[in-house]
């Protein structure tokens, strides 16, 4: 642990030349074209890393698989990652098992489930109507998500199941790259999708669909993207990893500081180099302003956020456990992992505490947080194995349906 809070701005070069200096000064950082990559983009381009002796080189990726492979092969040092995917990689679901590390949370909230304009025209605009519709003969719907073990797959599954629709039996689900969602929805090849922004907002703007549910309605202030790297990277470059967390924390604090910074950030990330979507599709939801394409408009109480006075970023162990329970629930994990040990291995809470502490950012009293989900259920990280088995709808091969 560090002994005292550091003041990097007072003398940045002291930090750079000290014994805590980053072992690796230039980092290759991967991100996807999504609005929740904002804190990495701001950290890399707006001078937040230099005071810590780091230069961040951004590399836009075109798939979560490619991003993962480049992390593993060392072509990327760290990247924006899907929470669920980190644990699928750690536990070898669908690929070789590689030790991974969650350095910090990057964002909460801000994903959504979109349905087609065709369903809207048919009056399928509520969960109840959707349930009726999928039960009708010959009405098998196709819903897309972005990665089989990613957050969007798990939000979609959770939401459908909480409305008594079995995601693996009552509908067909498939994976589509997020940037292609609106086009496929428009062309009638899919009936809906769950993805990050700006793709849901773009579907509404182009009249291709409507927002059926935001993910913050599933779980207010849910964990979403994380800053991830391999476990080997943290072991080899601990000072670099800590400096990186500090830089991204400062960028996150900057974005959430006021509306002006948020607007500036929205404009920056709209660039073709980063998200590459119209500012008009990015900015409103980035500022919490929602329109669902059904005539409702609201200022969301739990919009996409990057800092939230430090509540967004701790690598909570209970968040890690939740994603593992859902991978288990849907049969992606064939057996119970050693939940607590895996969470302790992946979540870099000690390193986070050093970085946040040095910046005077409030640390959580516990890395287990208690959450009440939209369906009224409570998750506090206790008994993950029992929680994974406690759902009426599931795909556990070894449990009665």
């Amino acid at each position, binding site marked *: 642990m560090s002994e005292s809070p550091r003041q990097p701005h007072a003398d940045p070069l002291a930090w750079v030349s000290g014994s805590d200096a980053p072992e690796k000064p230039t980092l290759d950082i991967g991100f996807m074209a999504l609005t929740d990559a904002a804190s990495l983009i701001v950290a890399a*381009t*707006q001078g937040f890393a230099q005071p810590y002796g780091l230069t961040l080189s951004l590399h836009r990726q*075109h*798939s979560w698989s*490619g991003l993962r492979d480049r992390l593993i092969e060392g072509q990327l040092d760290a990247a924006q990652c899907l929470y669920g995917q980190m644990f699928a990689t750690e536990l070898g679901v669908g*690929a070789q098992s590689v030790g991974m590390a969650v350095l910090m949370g990057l964002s909460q909230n801000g994903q959504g489930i979109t349905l087609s304009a065709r369903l809207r025209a048919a009056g399928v605009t509520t969960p109840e109507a959707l349930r009726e519709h999928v039960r009708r003969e010959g009405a098998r719907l196709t819903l897309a998500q972005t990665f089989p073990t990613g957050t969007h797959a798990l939000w979609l599954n959770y939401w459908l199941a909480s409305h008594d629709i079995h995601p693996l039996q009552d509908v067909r689900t498939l*994976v589509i790259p997020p940037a292609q969602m609106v086009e496929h929805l428009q062309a009638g090849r899919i009936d809906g999708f769950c993805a990050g922004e700006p793709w849901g907002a773009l579907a509404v703007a182009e009249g291709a669909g409507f927002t059926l549910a935001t993910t913050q309605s599933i779980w207010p202030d849910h964990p979403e993207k994380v800053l991830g790297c391999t476990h080997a990277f943290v072991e080899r470059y601990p000072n670099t990893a800590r400096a990186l967390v500090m830089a991204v924390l400062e960028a996150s604090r900057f974005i959430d500081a006021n509306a002006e910074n948020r607007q500036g950030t929205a404009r920056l990330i709209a*660039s073709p180099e980063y998200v590459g979507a119209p500012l008009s599709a990015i900015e409103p939801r980035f500022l919490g302003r929602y329109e669902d394409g059904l005539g409702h408009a609201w200022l969301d109480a739990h919009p996409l956020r990057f800092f939230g006075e430090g509540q967004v970023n701790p690598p909570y162990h209970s968040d890690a456990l939740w994603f593992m329970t859902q991978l288990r629930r849907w049969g992606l994990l064939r057996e119970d992992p050693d939940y607590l040990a895996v969470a302790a291995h992946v979540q870099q809470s000690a390193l986070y505490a050093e970085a946040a502490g040095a910046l005077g950012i409030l640390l959580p009293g516990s890395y287990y947080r208690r959450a009440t989900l939209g369906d009224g259920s409570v998750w506090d990280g206790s008994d993950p194995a029992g929680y994974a088995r406690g759902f009426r709808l599931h795909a556990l091969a070894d449990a009665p349906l």
Partner: protein
Amino acid sequence: MLRILLIDDTPKKLGRLRSALVEAGFEVIGESGLDIDLPDRVEALRPDVVLIDTDSPGRDVMEQVVLVSRDQPRPIVMFTDDDNPAAMRQAIKAGVSAYIVEGIQAQRLKPILDVAMARFESDQALRAQLQARDQQLAERKRIEMAKGMLMKMKGCNEEEAYTLMRRQAMSRQQKLVQVAEQIIAMNDLLGQ
């Protein structure tokens, strides 16, 4: 003979790869252009090998194919050569990823990967990375210099100067260092 499916969903043209593989005596059974059709194509054609650009958005669709096929008689897995990790790294660098029916041996796949790697454009990322390393120190000094000029010009403190520079940079979709250069140039012009 191994039956190959090519996935052609990126601007890098795979057109010549097909003929190169055929000329080298391999059997190319199809191409797929639309990511959404990939699972059906794999199901219908039953290839032994699927070749795809490492940076293709369709990679994530293949991830689903891998998971769905886990319990089928011919499971499809991402090719990773445990005996020769360097070869794998080279393939990713060249931009080729391969998915194979589980059990196919690495030496049977190697000649196919060799043809594919030769046909893919070489990776430019490494060059950009080397450039960034040289710029790093210069960038920090230029930002500091511009910040000092701005503090003097506006009579503001360090944090306010940073905020002003960042607002300007973000509204123009530029890096902070670019705005720093503009401030330095303006300062020179005004002869301060």
